[in-house]
């Protein structure tokens, strides 16, 4: 099936969208509330203490847009661009901006720009030991870059002091569990995105 077949497909207004790691977040003591169509977790146990070493947060409620062909999409304060191949990118933006972003990126000689938010999981690594956690996760030569993350294909970009990791959604629970295991000896753990953006303000993450 061509990706064109799902171009313009929209979730129904009543559809509740959930992170692929929502039950992991609930198990970590998170509260969940509806923000737009997404159920977003916040208030995890011990998250402020974890942020003093290393914390990882789920950012699945960001829109993740598949863009192919044409020139590389421009970075903006509220937009992250992850290169997947020479002519293929994943653009992350706040969920409420996805339609406008698709229209903007799909203009001109672009071959494809469509919403594949459900196909990817975005994970934010924060804290002074974030680089160390990334090294433990896999051999990423440089950031931005790509390589195995917890032994599955992953991409990493930098957002100020934060690291934004992108993996396929089907690996989300696995990567989450590996992060939790690797954080334990570093006195780190899971955090809500609200706590991360309180300590590391970011227009992309804070807008959600």
């Amino acid at each position: 099936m061509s990706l064109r077949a799902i171009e313009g497909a929209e979730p129904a207004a009543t559809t509740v969208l959930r992170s692929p790691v929502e039950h992991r977040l609930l198990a970590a003591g998170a509260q969940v509330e509806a923000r737009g169509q997404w159920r977003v977790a916040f208030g995890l146990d011990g998250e402020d203490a974890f942020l003093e070493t290393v914390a990882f947060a789920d950012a699945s409620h960001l829109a993740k847009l598949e863009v192919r062909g044409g020139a590389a999409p421009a970075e903006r304060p509220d937009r992250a661009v992850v290169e997947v191949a020479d002519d293929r990118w994943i653009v992350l933006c706040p969920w409420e901006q996805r339609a406008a972003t698709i229209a903007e990126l799909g203009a001109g000689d672009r071959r494809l720009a469509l919403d594949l938010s459900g196909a990817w999981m975005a994970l934010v690594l924060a804290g002074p030991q974030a680089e160390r956690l990334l090294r433990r996760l896999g051999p990423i030569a440089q950031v931005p870059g790509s390589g195995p993350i917890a032994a599955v294909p992953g991409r990493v970009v930098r957002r100020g002091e934060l690291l934004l990791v992108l993996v396929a959604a089907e690996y989300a629970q696995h990567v989450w569990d590996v992060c939790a295991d690797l954080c334990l000896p570093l006195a780190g753990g899971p955090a809500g995105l609200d706590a991360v953006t309180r300590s590391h303000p970011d227009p992309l993450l804070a807008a959600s």
Partner: protein
Amino acid sequence: MSFLIPCPHCGNRPQPEFAYGGNIGDDPPGSMLDVLSEDLYFNDNTAGEQFERWFHRFGCERWIVIRRDTRTNQVSEGWEGVDAP
């Protein structure tokens, strides 16, 4: 079976201190849509010398590349980084 790995930072250290990170393939890119997946899931299964990534998890916590003979576990060299020298 254990063997010694020459870490560029820590010297010769026993293999159990390290985590294996896969071999560095030399297949021509482009046969799959995602080169990263190709490198990760399609190993060359070489009988002989190959470049491999190892993570010194109980040492310097750095990724290194070594050249190992898969038939004998003889490691001839080690380099810093994650790409083949």
